[in-house]
């Protein structure tokens, strides 16, 4: 888990606006819930418009405060989405690995974001409900997921088998397909389970590491792809950091 609430650290902190998008009932709110409260709840108040939560995450050199906009998934709320992803520095596009339609919808969201959101937005494609297909070891992509652009990637848990035979019935979106798509779109990719907590913190950490510190450093260099916590080498100008709470805002 991320060091939730490790706010006391004297490390510089900056806030990052993150938006969750995805079809209804893929588990967006549950992911946030898991991340923020390390909790899972079957019945939660539905998200009207969007829910707003914050959570801090401590990296080695800085603290990132996520301002999380958890949007409503119902199709008709889609037209409200621009209001929420406006100025977002990161986006979690969530789909349900057991529902192909949700993956399609996720792709739509990715392209919407690429066209309409802030240019440097960090996108993570997240296949949730991995626990449902858990009897299969999360397959393939055994190597750390990364690409030339230095997108930080996290290997899905080790010891993975190759074929998805057993899960055929439950899992509908193969990891390979989704991964290939994410690579193509230069997005991060994870499979998570909000229920078990699998990979949830990792997603947010990876995103945190991926946020370009626009004002402070140049775009993150290539090869920054390690595992969970990329070592952030210091060289951080504290003053700028602090005033840069709103860094990355396009406006």
């Amino acid at each position: 888990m991320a060091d939730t609430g490790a706010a006391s650290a004297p490390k510089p902190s900056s806030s990052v606006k993150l938006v969750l998008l995805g079809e209804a009932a893929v588990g967006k709110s549950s992911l946030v819930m898991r991340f923020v409260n390390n909790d899972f709840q079957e019945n939660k108040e539905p998200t009207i418009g969007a829910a707003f939560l914050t959570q801090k995450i401590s990296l080695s050199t800085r603290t990132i405060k996520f301002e999380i906009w958890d949007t409503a998934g119902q199709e008709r709320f889609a037209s409200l989405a621009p209001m929420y992803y406006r100025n977002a520095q990161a986006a979690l596009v969530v789909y349900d690995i057991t529902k192909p339609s949700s993956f399609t919808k996720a792709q739509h969201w990715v392209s919407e974001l690429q066209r309409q959101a802030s240019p440097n937005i960090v996108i993570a494609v997240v296949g949730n409900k991995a626990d449902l297909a858990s009897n299969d070891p999360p397959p393939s992509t055994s190597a750390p997921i990364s690409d030339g652009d230095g997108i930080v990637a996290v290997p899905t848990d080790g010891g993975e088998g190759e074929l998805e035979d057993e899960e055929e019935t439950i899992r509908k979106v193969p990891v390979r397909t989704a991964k290939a798509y994410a690579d193509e779109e230069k997005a991060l990719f994870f499979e998570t389970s909000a229920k078990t907590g699998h990979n949830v913190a990792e997603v947010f950490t990876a995103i945190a590491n991926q946020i370009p510190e626009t004002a402070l450093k140049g775009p993150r260099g290539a090869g920054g792809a390690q595992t969970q916590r990329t070592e952030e080498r210091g060289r951080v100008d504290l003053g700028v950091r602090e005033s840069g709470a709103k860094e990355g805002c396009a406006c």
Partner: protein
Amino acid sequence: MYAIGDKYIVPALKEHARRKFKRYTTEEEMTVSELMEHGFDQAVKLVYTTPPNYRPLRNLVVKIAFKYQAILVSSESFLEAIESTPAFRRDLFLFRLTETSSNAMFNLSSLVQKAQQFIDPTLSPLNPGSDRRPSKATLFRSQFRLPASQNPLQEITAELTLAPHHTQRGPQNEGSRGEKDGTRVQGNHYVGKLHLSEQYLLFSTQGSSFLNTASLSASSAFTGQTHGAGPAGNGFILPLCAIRRVERLPTHSYMFALAITTWNGSGDGKGKGSGSSGGQKLTIQMAGSRQQCERFCDGLKKGLREGVKEVENLRAVVSECYSEFLLSELSDEKGGPENHDSGMREPPDTGLGKIYKYPGNVRKLRDATKMRLWREEMKENGRNATLVRQPTFHKLIRVGLPNRLRGEIWELTSGSFFERLQNPKLFEETLKKYEGRESLAIDEIEKDLNRSLPEYPGFQEEEGIGRLRRVLTAYSWINPDVGYCQAMNIVVAALLIYMSESQAFFLLSVLCNTLLPGYYSQTMYGTLLDQRVFESLVEKTMPILWEHLVRSDIQLSVVSLPWFLSLYINSMPLIFAFRVLDVFFLEGPKVLFQIGLAILRINGEELLDATDDGTFISILKSYFSRLDESAHPNSENPKLRAVTRFQELMVVAFKEFTGITQNTISEQRAKHKDAVLDSIESFAKRTSIRNLGPESKRLSSNDLGFIYDRFYGVLYERQQRLQTIQAEADRKTKNARTKATEVVTGVPSNTVETGRVGLGPSATQMDYDTFREFLAGITRWAVTDSPSTPLQDSQSEKQHSYFGNSLKGRPVNLSPWGAGPEPTDHEFMKRLFQKWDKDNTGALTLQNVVAGFAQVKGTKDIMSNISYFFELYDDDGDGKVDREGILRISEALLFLSRRGFERSLSSSPSMNDLQTQVSSETREGRRENRDEQFLSSVSAFIRRCFEYADPDQQRTEGEVKEAAAGIDNFSIGDDEDDLLDLGNNEKPTSPKKSQSPQTPRPNQAAANAALDPNNPLFITLPTFRMVILADEVLENFFDSAFSNSFKLFDPSIPSSTSLSANLTTFSNAGAPGRGSNVTLPVGGASAGVAAPGKGIRGMLDNIVSDGMRVAAEVRRRMDEAQRELDRAATGRDEDSEDEHDDLRTPRGKGDPETRSVMDTDRELLEGAETADVGVSKPVENLMDREIGAPAPVAESTKGEELFER
């Protein structure tokens, strides 16, 4: 017309009248004859036809009339003038009241309101430029929250007299009221308007008039400040079935006085004790001419008779109202010692609260006290259907409703009671009707059932969840356009705490339709719009805060959106949210804004320190959580200390923001509507285009955007047109009824503006007719040659001038094709439609259309174009096209080319020979030349096709030989033909027209064994390809001209409505069709279709009519011939109609020598008739002649022009 009158007539009249009236006022004494001589009666009428802004003039008239009333009363014509000008009557009446105000018998506040209205008569200059104005009927319904079936039938100024309030007289007097009918000695008096609709008798002090003669501003006056009384003001809304009797009272001071006895109590036997209150009586004095009063009473009588039928409904509906129980309980108590199990009925369902407790502390809410007050109020003033609203009523609502009455009062104030009364069983019936059915909405509902107000115990159990499920499901069935939207679950859950399922169902319906229009729609445009409105109100009222928000880049709507969407229910603690709802249902949507503004105002200081969304949200969150605390905890004054934050909020909302009226909201909505819809639409467009699938990648994004715009544009326009036509028809049948938009909501009512993407679900599929219109918009060949004369709107202006300017400035175009070019109908279009309709649904989706275009335009490969075309005609997909198909292909080629192509077909050098004087004619000539080439190419195509066709199996040897011989002959002729084509450019158009579809068939049939219907043959794709490629013109056609004939996005088009700028929304692209009349495609194709000047046009028209005559003759003959010949070749007849259409115009062009050509035709036909299968030579000659017959160039040029038109 109204506006014109406004501008021109009135100033003149004003001038004139002023001068005239000066005399009246200066001269002391006048006689009737003198007055009439001066046309005073006429003047009255005239003055009152002016808009009410000319108030001074009216006042003058009133003054004079009052002054000379004694004399005037004796004048017939003056009475008549009164009769016909209700506004005058009203003013007179009021003037009289003010003059005689020494009696002080009328309610002062209502007069103040009247006065305000007079001072500011143009209270609702709602978007003056807008041509969408609400109808009187709409305003009427909105003011009283009546069902859509109600229309204002009668209205009259009246004074309502009520017995003095019970509390003023002391409790011992109860039950003895109502005895002093007809006297104006005591009691409360209200001056206002008495209205009659089909099923209701209404009285309101909110002065407004819905008479046809009244101006709109008078009708919409209620959108101004209502001082807490809500749009219906003080008064009553009586269902006619709730009136027990009406008596006419003898009176001296008024012309008519009625005593209305309401039907109180549900009439059950136990009600005997309550007999005293059952006789609730209202006294109404009408002020108007005798005639008018009588007319009103007649209408009332009729309505009452009708109303008898509904008494049963009323009984059923009322039995669900707690008030009935409450009052019967009361009478029982009175009747004897408390005896709960003897005569007591079961109390009606007052929501889940009865089982699971109502939220909040009963004692703290002072529920019992409130209940007692309401009981008294209702004993005095009637209950549910018969409640008379007096100021106490509104005050009682402001302090919060008691739990068990809350549902009922919500129902009454929101108007959902009337909906329920109209169709009491709708809820149960809907559930039954759709039992067991599934839908997307139901899936969505199920997902949220467990998470609707989960903190309320009732919704943790099946009892509450079941109710919620049933209400939401039933609503999703009766309004599938809305279906289910998240947040509805929360709102309905809240309602269900206080009311029965059925009540909640109707209230939800009123919420979605009237109070929160578009909030829960597919696009949620209402929500977005109101957010925009809210922001602009914040900017206006709290500029500093607004400035701060902008600077800190905090988007207000992320905070306020849930407030509006769920009516504060999940923002505030429930008890407070319900208090807001109490007022909201009475006063309307403006309350949401007032509360929202007050929240920001109260927290202004703190909010100014917030620099990001997070802080902003948390400030408000903590504010909401402390609403029950003291607003002034440190105050010395204990009274001030006792004021809670919530009370403070209410005070700020309704005192400080009292200026936020429904009118404000309407104005703002109208102002922002387009921008909001545009942004929704551009979002929808973006999304839609991106999701069109892989085929769409073959088209440029500009093209996709264009297709999208056109696609929805056409659908939208058609829908609009249908509605206009429908509305027009309606209007003809019922003049009083018009469809118009809601001013009240500021959002167009669904009836008018459905179809616009941003408004929610709209048509997404094109049927064939729509497709034709769509094609006509983007191609030249799909535009008809013989447009039917557009229907003129012959309705006299006068007839609909009264319903306002709703149609002003937008001439009603009743043509079924609207302003755009009228499409033709051709088999090719049908084939294209079928081909694109991949799933055989009989309709095209945007995806179908895009996929279709991707195939036609997405490739630059001539080979695939050829195969595509071939496939269009390969009906069974076996790779063969038979004779019929070949002929059809040729027809299609001619059809497609009949207007020529732009810079697509290379022109031969010989064309330079064609020199005509006028440059445009040169162009025409050139085009003609190309057309001719095309024509000969097509004929060559037919011949070649048959030449290279493969015979179908079952042919005999001899036939084959004969066929071969025929083919030989043909090929010779072919060569000659080609030579001729190249050499002789003066060929007339006319003869070749005769070659078009119909005629050649018989000839060829006669000429060639290959054409014999008895000898089946077919061509394959390779053959087809070869034949096409053998001809340069056809090659060209398939290379580019065909796909270019579809005009999509073309940045080079300079045409006025700069396309590129309009790309974002289809509504813009659609606009040219309606507005500027520059239809894009035609503009784009202007090269050839330049509209002829009027002079030419007149000439051409003559020629056309002449030509049509000839064509008709030819058609007759051809039909004859056809009948003889085509017994075998059937199935083509359905198209012949269109082909004739196509023929008609070209026929006409040649005029004099068309006739000579006709002769050839006749010969041709005769030849065909007699020809027998074996003889090929003569027919070949015929064909030569047909194609090659010379004619003067000039003539054909002229013809071409006509053709182009």
